[in-house]
């Protein structure tokens, strides 16, 4: 079979993965959800639904690829600060880091469906040779991440070519970019496979739950890493520069060995050969090692893709269990438990459970650099943490998926669904005020009343969650339950709700210059919001 023919045929298993992942609401990153308000109405016709799902997938891929290109280009701004050689090394390293994290994160979302869907099972029944089958499967896998990987490689290579005018540096950048994509996809594939294996193993073992928790935290760390690299390069760049300039120190040796800094240093030295020979040698040897490692990783990925697409490689153990006892709970607690279980077992939503950890780290990072805890810092940290928590209702509704159709046959009203998800979402925000409280013991505050800000925001987060979920459920009421949580525009309503009390605080402070008045205004706004939200909840 010709490669072009295999590429063309690979659309079938790829479409299957896309369709399943969207139709079952296995999710995408939140920015992929914009513009789907009519999803439920068009979904009435299966033919229309299929076409729409594929259109959405293409749109998602384009948006994510664009975002990836911008993210890979952004670190090159550090080229214009300090030494040109160090700047180039840092730019390339950070660009590769960001692209790695971003590609891995996105690929995890897509590949979780690839790993679980047995996407090529149908092709396996056709009279195709093993070789042809492998080609088709591989191409369908590549289609999942093609736009963003190609976008990142092209942008990095063009930028290096333009900035260095060196064919060798450009070639090396090309190799490093491909290697980076291979590493990212391999990590994503490993994560997805690990998660799915752990899930399909079943059983009630505590080790399984623990492994899932580890997975969630690792995933969260990856997200945090990308977030930090994107949001505060001005914080990272000076540290990197200082470390790279002091070669004698252990930290700089670390950078020469560890990918992707070794790649950045090796490429930069081709253009500006002024680093010590030993440093260049270490970085170059490390690069050769990484190229070999990328080869191994690529081979492993190919083999894994072949296996999983045929539905092989996932071991399912069946343990005979005569204990059929179940534990019943109150309906609210029962719903909360169900929500926690389904969302923590879905790779596309599980990482949201790392949000409390991320919030704690982000709030700590935002505040540790200041000697005094100012009200403005408290406001910024509270807003950041709050916005993170408001992603939770979306995740919880996504995780419901088609199972919500069964819930609709149970004596459960939307009030209970909203309460359960509000409780979980609000709980994920709680680390923010607690971290701020801990910080308040360590630092002086411009006003001790400021510590009430994150605590009063708990009320606003609860209200915001209720409004978000109400809007989401409203969009599903038309009948296409599977499309329940696909409208991130509604998150804006939640963010505005969460911000109103903070705006009330700021506005009243600027009018009165009195923290007591400002806190009272904030508390008043939060209480009114909660009263309205509870009214909405009661009448749902």
């Amino acid at each position, binding site marked *: 079979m010709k490669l072009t023919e295999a590429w063309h045929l690979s659309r079938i298993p790829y479409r299957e993965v896309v369709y399943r992942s969207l139709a*079952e609401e296995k999710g995408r990153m939140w920015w992929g959800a914009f513009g789907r308000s009519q999803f439920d109405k068009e979904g*009435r*016709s299966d033919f229309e639904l299929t076409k729409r799902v594929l259109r959405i997938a293409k749109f998602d891929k384009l948006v994510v690829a664009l975002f990836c290109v911008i993210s890979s280009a952004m670190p090159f701004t550090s080229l214009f600060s300090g030494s040109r050689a160090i700047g180039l090394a840092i730019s390339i390293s950070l660009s590769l880091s960001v692209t790695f994290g971003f590609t891995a994160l996105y690929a995890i979302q897509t590949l979780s469906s690839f790993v*679980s869907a047995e996407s090529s099972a149908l092709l396996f029944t056709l009279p195709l040779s093993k070789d042809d089958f492998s080609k088709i499967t591989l191409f369908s896998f590549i289609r999942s991440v093609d736009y963003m990987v190609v976008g990142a490689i092209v942008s990095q290579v063009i930028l290096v070519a333009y900035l260095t005018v060196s064919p060798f540096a450009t070639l090396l950048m090309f190799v490093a970019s491909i290697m980076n994509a291979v590493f990212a996809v391999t990590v994503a594939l490993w994560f997805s496979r690990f998660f799915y294996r752990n*899930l*399909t193993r*079943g*059983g*009630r073992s505590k080790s399984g739950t623990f492994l899932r928790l580890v997975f969630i935290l690792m995933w969260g760390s990856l997200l945090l890493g990308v977030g930090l690299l994107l949001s505060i390069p001005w914080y990272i760049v000076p540290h990197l520069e200082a470390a790279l300039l002091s070669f004698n120190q252990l930290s700089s040796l670390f950078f020469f060995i560890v990918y992707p800094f070794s790649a950045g240093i090796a490429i930069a030295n081709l253009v500006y050969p002024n680093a010590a020979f030993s440093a260049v040698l270490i970085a170059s040897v490390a690069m050769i090692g990484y190229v070999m490692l990328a080869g191994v990783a690529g081979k492993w990925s190919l083999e894994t893709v072949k296996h999983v697409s045929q539905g092989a490689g996932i071991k*399912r153990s*069946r*343990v*005979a*269990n*005569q204990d*059929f*006892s*179940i*534990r*019943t*709970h*109150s*309906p609210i*607690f*029962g*719903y909360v*438990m*169900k929500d926690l*279980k*389904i969302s923590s*077992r*879905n790779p596309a939503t599980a990482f949201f459970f790392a949000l409390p950890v991320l919030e704690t780290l982000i709030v700590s990072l935002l505040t540790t650099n200041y000697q005094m805890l100012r009200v403005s810092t408290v406001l910024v940290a509270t807003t950041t943490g709050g916005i993170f928590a408001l992603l939770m209702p979306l995740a919880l509704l996504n995780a419901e*998926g*088609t*199972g919500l*159709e*069964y*819930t*609709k*046959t*149970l*004596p*459960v*009203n939307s009030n209970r669904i909203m309460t359960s998800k509000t409780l979980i979402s609000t709980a994920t925000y709680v680390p923010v005020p607690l971290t701020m409280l801990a910080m308040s013991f360590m630092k002086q505050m411009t006003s001790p009343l400021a510590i009430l800000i994150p605590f009063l925001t708990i009320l606003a987060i609860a209200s915001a969650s209720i409004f978000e979920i109400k809007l989401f459920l409203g969009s599903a009421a038309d*009948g296409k339950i599977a499309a329940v949580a696909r409208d991130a525009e509604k998150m804006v309503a939640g963010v505005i709700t969460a911000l109103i009390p903070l705006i009330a605080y700021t506005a009243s402070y600027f009018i009165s210059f009195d923290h007591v008045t400002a806190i009272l205004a904030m508390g008043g706004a939060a209480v009114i919001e909660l009263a309205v939200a509870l009214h909405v909840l009661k009448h749902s």
Partner: protein
Amino acid sequence: MPLIETSGLSKQFGSVQALADLNLQIMPREIYGLLGPNGAGKTTSIKIITGLVEPTSGWVKVAGFDPVKNPIEAKSRIGYVAENPILYESLSPRDFLEFVASMRKIDQNTANQRVTQLADAFDMAQYFDSPIATLSMGMKQKVALIASFVHQPPILLLDEPLNGLDAKSSRIAKDLVSLHAQRGGAVLFSTHIMEVAEHICTRIGIIHQGKVIAEGTLDQLRSKTGGKSETLEEVLLKLTNEETQVADATRMLGEAIFK
């Protein structure tokens, strides 16, 4: 008093009339078989009675409650098995049944006792802690059946409940349905397996193009077609005017494929 009652029930999906003027009365101790070709409106009827789909016109009463106006009251009295069981795939049967029992406010001991008996009868031992996603269709169907019986509802709405079940489980399910009716419950049973309907249904409704075209016991249906010893399949094909289509299709396919 009928446990399931519908009057003038209709449902329009865009330009498609899925259901037209459905009038049903299912009494306690009755197993009502809803039969018809694919796309006739069986699943739509059941989904409307369950409260999953709102009717375009007409009304439904489930144990005296309207599933649209009093959904909680109505759904508390229903046990439902869908044509393709849509369950929470990442949950295990144990997790899923814990959730269902909690939502239905069944006390711990009662829930434990019923689940244990049902799971044991349906041979769930090896599958009780495996994610539902990894189970076969038959196993998923068993989970849905256990969930529909766990609260001992007066009304069972069963849409192809025997899909994928092995012989033993299928027999247990049929016996459970019969016992349920004997104890005063009402069952609306949709199936394509004519022998099953013939064997367990006390009354049969033939639905075609959204309309009930005939209703009654098997003998009453036979009298409408004029054949005294006809099977239910023959009766159905005659009533839906598909008998000649079947003969034509078989002849044509025989010539095209096996010549």
